[in-house]
């Protein structure tokens, strides 16, 4: 190892963590510690119960001073979890933090192996690799990047609204982007909310108008993010503003134009009422839509289809707000942080054909029922079935597109509770007999179990069993003209046939259809099922793996309104941390060209995806702009003459890791 002495004498402190029993029960930490002590350069090697605890960190700091240590290695959990903790501890101990190296013997060893001998050997190999690696470590300067104080929020459902208001109230400028003509999201479609049964609109619409009127919020509806460039603190975003064909500055939402449209009746399924009513080509999604601006649907408007409309709408508008020549507009904005609150979509019930959705008119999805029971809904809140009848019996089928290996495996978390709510509302509206077919009732929230108890008292029936089929095949006279729900009642062990007038399918929550495109655009990850992936499931639930981008609400996973709002607040707080600290530390893992070694062959210029590498024409050499380099190291691997180096990942560091991993005996000599 003599060749490694160029940093002066290397004095290594090695600390192996028990992590309680997490590591020590599978890895013989004492054996690893003793083995590492025998390696060249190692001055201190010891074990400790919790290295990440204050005493653990203080131990390192004390040793740095008392034993003049200049390299620190901690073998514990994943560097993605605690690298920063230990770097900070090392820095407080008076040593440059980049002399630190972490060895992952928990996630990569003790948690995934059962054989103590093999796990201990692996821990030794990984630790030895780190010992060899740190010989090549260098003192580096942490990079700081300024944070642009403005925030982009994508998605104007309750999560986006809450995050926007939180930040705006803290004095930050927010761009709230919503692709529909109005904000409000799914919550605006709901009738009441569980378990308190407040009216969804009553609690949501005030927040919607606050958004509209807040001086710090720029609200762009009917708009989508087209392009994302840049990095934490300095994102450059292109927003595509779709043409409404109505001038937003001029329209006051009087709706005279809608009334005067040449269509006397709506012909197009109304999105807001989930197709239960029809709207005209010129419309406002719902009375409290925000902003209160009319939109023209190009696909159904006669003027766009034929160019020969009488344009009665134009005549009707005193303010001359209608503009058929309006063009799509691209807005360029700069923000420092981004919060994604893009929500979810409901499960398409026709994917479970044996429940008869789309086949039997009186089979409804839960979202349709929300509109049916709503006073401003298509029937004015009167529960009239598609065949004109009022239901006397209703069956609610839980877990449609949830907890099902054939569709979605996950629990959608909200269906039990909203099914209880709908059961209550249906009973209230119709006094029908209501049957709930459930697998388990999951009422784990504040006052949720109590709500379930209340429903039991209301004589709503609960049948525990997965429904096999919904059919109109009557075998008894009492079943004639009814929908028959066949299910096993697992509590009494018989198959039941329950004839009902109306079936409600409690559809689950799914990632948005374009969630993969969205996450690619923002360079974040998705979990297996397609919801956006948080940085840590417990400790960083609204962070992503991309600095400066946060997630909240159902885009991260199924959740109800209180949880979405809580996450939105958390995401806003995370953004505030960055904005108010004004800058962020970046890993100094950028690449640089050693000028007198560069032959100017241009290989690196062709492969950098961030155009961080340019050519100094005078010197005829490549040059890396540190601010643009994101530290992937691709150019380093490609540089054919070894003239590019990457901080923290230099060739020699990786070669010495390889060597250390594969060397079975002590590397003290070679």
């Amino acid at each position, binding site marked *: 190892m003599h060749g490694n002495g160029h940093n002066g004498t290397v004095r290594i402190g090695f600390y192996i963590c028990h992590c309680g029993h997490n590591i020590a029960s599978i890895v013989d930490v004492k054996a690893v510690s003793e083995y590492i002590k025998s390696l060249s350069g190692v001055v201190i090697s010891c074990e400790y119960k919790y290295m990440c605890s204050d005493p653990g960190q203080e131990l390192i700091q004390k040793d740095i001073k008392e034993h003049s240590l200049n390299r620190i290695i901690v073998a514990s959990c*994943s*560097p*993605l*979890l605690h690298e920063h903790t230990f770097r900070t501890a090392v820095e407080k101990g008076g040593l440059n933090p980049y002399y630190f190296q972490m060895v*992952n013997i*928990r*996630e*990569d*060893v003790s*948690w*995934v*192996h*059962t*054989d103590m001998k*093999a*796990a201990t*050997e*692996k821990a030794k*190999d*990984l630790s030895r*690799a780190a010992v060899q690696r740190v010989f090549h470590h260098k003192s580096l300067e942490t990079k700081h990047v300024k944070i642009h104080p403005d925030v982009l929020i994508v998605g104007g459902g309750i999560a986006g609204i809450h995050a926007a208001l939180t930040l705006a109230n803290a004095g930050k400028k927010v761009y709230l982007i919503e692709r529909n003509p109005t904000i409000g999201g799914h919550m605006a479609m709901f009738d009441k909310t569980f378990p308190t049964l407040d009216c969804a609109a009553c609690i949501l619409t005030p927040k919607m108008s606050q958004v509209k009127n807040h001086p710090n919020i720029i609200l762009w509806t009917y708009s989508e993010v087209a392009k994302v460039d840049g990095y934490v603190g300095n994102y450059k975003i292109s927003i595509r503003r779709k043409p409404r064909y109505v001038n937003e500055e001029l329209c006051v939402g009087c709706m005279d134009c809608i009334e005067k449209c040449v269509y006397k009746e709506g012909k197009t399924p109304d999105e807001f009422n989930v197709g239960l009513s029809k709207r005209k080509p010129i419309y406002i999604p719902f009375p409290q839509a925000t902003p209160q601006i009319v939109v023209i649907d190009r696909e159904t408007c006669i003027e766009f289809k034929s160019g020969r409309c009488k344009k009665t709408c134009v005549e009707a508008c005193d303010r001359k707000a209608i503009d058929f020549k309006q063009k799509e507009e691209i807005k360029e904005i700069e923000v420092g942080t981004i919060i994604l609150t893009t929500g979810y979509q409901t499960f398409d019930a026709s994917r479970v054909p044996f429940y008869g959705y789309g086949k039997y008119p009186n089979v409804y999805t839960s979202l349709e029922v929300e509109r049916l029971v709503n006073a401003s809904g298509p029937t004015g809140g009167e529960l009239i079935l598609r065949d004109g009848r009022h239901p006397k019996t209703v069956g609610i089928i839980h877990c449609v597109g949830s907890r099902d290996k054939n569709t979605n495996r996950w629990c959608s978390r909200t269906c039990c509770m909203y099914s209880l709510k709908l059961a209550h509302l249906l009973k209230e509206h119709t006094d029908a007999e209501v049957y709930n077919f459930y697998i388990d009732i999951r009422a784990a929230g504040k006052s949720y179990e109590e709500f379930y108890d209340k429903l039991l008292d209301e004589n709503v029936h609960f049948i525990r069993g997965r429904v096999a089929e919904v059919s109109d095949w009557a075998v008894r006279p009492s079943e004639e003209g009814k929908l028959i729900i066949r299910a096993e009642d697992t509590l009494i062990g018989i198959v039941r046939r329950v004839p009902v007038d109306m079936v409600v399918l409690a559809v689950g929550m799914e990632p948005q259809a374009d969630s993969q495109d969205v996450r*690619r655009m923002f*360079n974040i*990850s*998705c*979990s*297996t099922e397609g919801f956006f*992936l948080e940085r840590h*499931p417990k400790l960083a639930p609204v962070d992503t*793996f*991309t600095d400066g981008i946060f997630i909240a609400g159902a885009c991260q996973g199924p959740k109800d309104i209180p949880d979405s709002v809580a996450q939105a607040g958390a995401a806003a707080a995370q953004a505030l941390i960055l904005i108010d600290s004004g800058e962020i530390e970046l890993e100094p*893992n950028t690449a640089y060209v050693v000028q007198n070694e560069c032959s100017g062959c241009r290989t690196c210029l062709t*492969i950098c*995806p*961030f155009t961080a590498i340019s050519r100094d024409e005078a010197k005829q050499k490549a040059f890396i702009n540190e601010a643009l380099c*994101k*530290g*992937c*190291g*691709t150019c*380093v*691997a*490609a540089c054919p003459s070894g003239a590019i180096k*990457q901080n923290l*990942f230099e*060739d020699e560091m*990786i*070669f010495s*890791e*390889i*060597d250390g*991993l*594969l*060397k*079975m*005996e002590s590397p003290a000599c*070679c």
Partner: protein
Amino acid sequence: MPTVEQPKENSWEPRIIAFFCNWCTYTAADLAGVSRLRYAPNARIIRVMCSGRVDPQFILDAFSKGADGVLIGGCHPGDCHYMEGNYKALRRMELLKRMMKDMGIEDKRFRLEWISASEGERVKTVINEMTEQVRALGPLGLPKKFAEWDKELESLEHEINAKGDTVHA
């Protein structure tokens, strides 16, 4: 020369060096850990920021130092945290694989896998599969082979020294 391992034939265990990208596969390995998935203890992970950082030299170096297999894990195509580092890895590995075949290294000893951050299960499957595939191939043992090749220098040295006897015989 690195110290050469002298395993007993029956105690041989495949040694696999795995280069995992920070954002997808390394995170997936963390997830496998958090989920307490159990898999073979034969892989040793080296974390790099991107699969595009994996220099073909690292792979050859690992083999020459005694690895029986090398695994590279990166983000799925289109998902690279750095836009297209994984495509560069793919291009390099396609050519490297062909070259290594010409150099007598079985292609099953070398694997490039796309494993996203959520695919902890895939980390387990791939490491288990690869361990068994490499086990079936047996040790590559290049350091041992290098040492054996170099024995011809010593043995011929003996022969040269013995040559005098031959002439007189």
